[in-house]
């Protein structure tokens, strides 16, 4: 549905997006994750035809964003960062304006507007001007605005930024609901967002794409490792060396000691197989095992490694 091919965009000396490639199949909810300034907004602006890329091509539903911009724009619902809206308007008038520009026939306009009002839960605020609503409701108006023409593709730039936890939850529910039928790209700089709403994540850092995969895949790929947490009683050095010698253990870190138990974290290639070997080794050496737990590295770790972590190395 969306193909991005070697896109580069510069603003004077700043490179905002460098050689970015990705594609989004129909029906996928893609999270575009990255710290502030990574180039998420710029990527979205290119896809929505707000500004052209300097190099590379992008197509939406088979139409080129540069040469067939009107066709692309017809098929996209876009919520820009911070949900800019005509604050002095009432929501119904605003949605009516959009349905006109979107070319919805007069006979269907009212029904369409009513439908998005319901989907986005706006019924209770119709008497308020958009500028008088809470941030959460403004964001809902922003979402309603993207849905009015029943687009195939939704592009949402940081749709939950600036909302309180309840509002975030509500907006995510709406997005998940919408995501069942549509192709969605949503950007965010907060992790739980992608875990809560996306089937796939791409991570951007310093204008470049640094990772692409499902949230689970990315976690696994963290360093190609899972994490095994072991708590055992016995001679600390012997335990450490014994575990390090096991097949499939890449490294051992001592995470602490507590009433004669040592707590160790093993970076391993395959959590389950190694866990078995750890158990067998403990039986052989006569250590008492209190805990043996495999954890996949959290997406948070991946994100940290890919973004902040690497930045510090430079």
């Amino acid at each position: 549905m969306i193909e991005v091919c070697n896109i580069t965009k510069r603003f004077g000396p700043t490179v905002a997006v460098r050689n970015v490639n990705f594609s989004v199949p129909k029906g996928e909810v893609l999270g575009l994750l990255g710290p502030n300034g990574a180039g998420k907004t710029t990527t979205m602006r290119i896809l929505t035809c707000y500004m052209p890329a300097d190099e590379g091509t992008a197509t939406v539903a088979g139409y080129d964003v540069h040469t067939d911009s009107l066709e692309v724009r017809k098929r996209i619902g876009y919520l820009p960062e911070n949900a800019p809206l005509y604050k002095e308007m009432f929501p119904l008038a605003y949605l009516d304006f959009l349905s006109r520009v979107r070319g919805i026939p007069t006979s269907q306009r009212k029904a369409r507007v009513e439908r998005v009002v319901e989907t986005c839960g706006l019924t209770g605020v119709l008497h308020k001007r958009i500028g008088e609503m809470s941030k959460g409701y403004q964001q809902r108006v922003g979402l309603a605005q993207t849905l009015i023409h029943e687009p195939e593709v939704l592009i949402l730039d940081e749709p939950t930024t600036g909302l309180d936890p309840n509002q975030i939850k509500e907006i995510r529910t709406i997005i998940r609901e919408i995501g069942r039928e549509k192709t969605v790209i949503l950007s965010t700089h907060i992790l739980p967002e992608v875990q809560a709403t996306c089937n796939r994540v791409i991570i951007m850092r310093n204008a470049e794409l640094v990772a692409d995969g499902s949230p689970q895949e990315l976690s696994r790929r963290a360093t190609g490792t899972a994490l095994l947490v072991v708590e055992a009683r016995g001679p600390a050095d012997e335990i450490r060396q014994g575990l390090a010698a096991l097949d499939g253990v890449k490294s051992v870190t001592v995470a602490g000691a507590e009433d004669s138990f040592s707590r160790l974290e093993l970076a391993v290639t395959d959590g389950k197989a190694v866990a078995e070997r750890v158990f067998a080794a403990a039986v052989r050496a006569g250590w008492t095992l209190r805990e043996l737990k495999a954890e996949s590295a959290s997406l948070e770790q991946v994100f940290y490694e890919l973004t902040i972590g690497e930045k510090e190395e430079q």
Partner: protein
Amino acid sequence: MRNVTAIARREFQGYFNSLIAYVFLVIYLLLTSWLFFRVFFLNGQASMRLMFDIMPWVYLFFVPAITMRLWAEEKKVGTMELLMTLPVRDVEAVLGKFLAALGLLVLALALTFPIPLIVSLLGNLDFGPVAGGYLAAILLGAAYLAVGVFVSSLTQNQIVAFILGVVIVFALYMIGSDIVLYSVPTAVASVFEYVSLGTHFESIGRGVIDSRDLIYYLSIIGFFLYLNVRSIESRKWR
């Protein structure tokens, strides 16, 4: 066309949403009637000349006031990004905004219509020149508007847009005045005289509608609307 009307409609309603329209209409009508009748009762001639003579000066401030927000506000609030990612051509957006402002101006002019009616009750008014005057006022106003909308697209700041609008319109009007024309070389003077908004206003206002004046106004309007489209497009190559 559908997009042009949708945008013009929204902008026109926007004037009334934010009360700008009411303030504008009331002040405009009060000022025009006061300036007109003050002199009218003194010299007691059944003529509307005076109302049209003051129009370029009244418009000098009123027109930039109604155009200043049209783009500047969108840029400041960020709705520009919404508008420009709708399936609307840049030229349609420019025309929509221009027509909305023109709608307000024409409404204001229509509301001055009681003035010639009162005059015709008091004396013998020739409606020919009055019609010419109204046409000239619409053309002049539309030219000012085209300048004003364009200037609004250059900045995020409405006040800057207003001041810049006043300055450019004033300059375009004044380059045709005698003071300027006498102080520049003849070759330049004839160009100035042609380009000036004022020269053409006077000839239509006299009741003579010359196709050259019409073409002049339409080209000025077209020129500034074109610049406007270009300046909107400039976001793409900045």
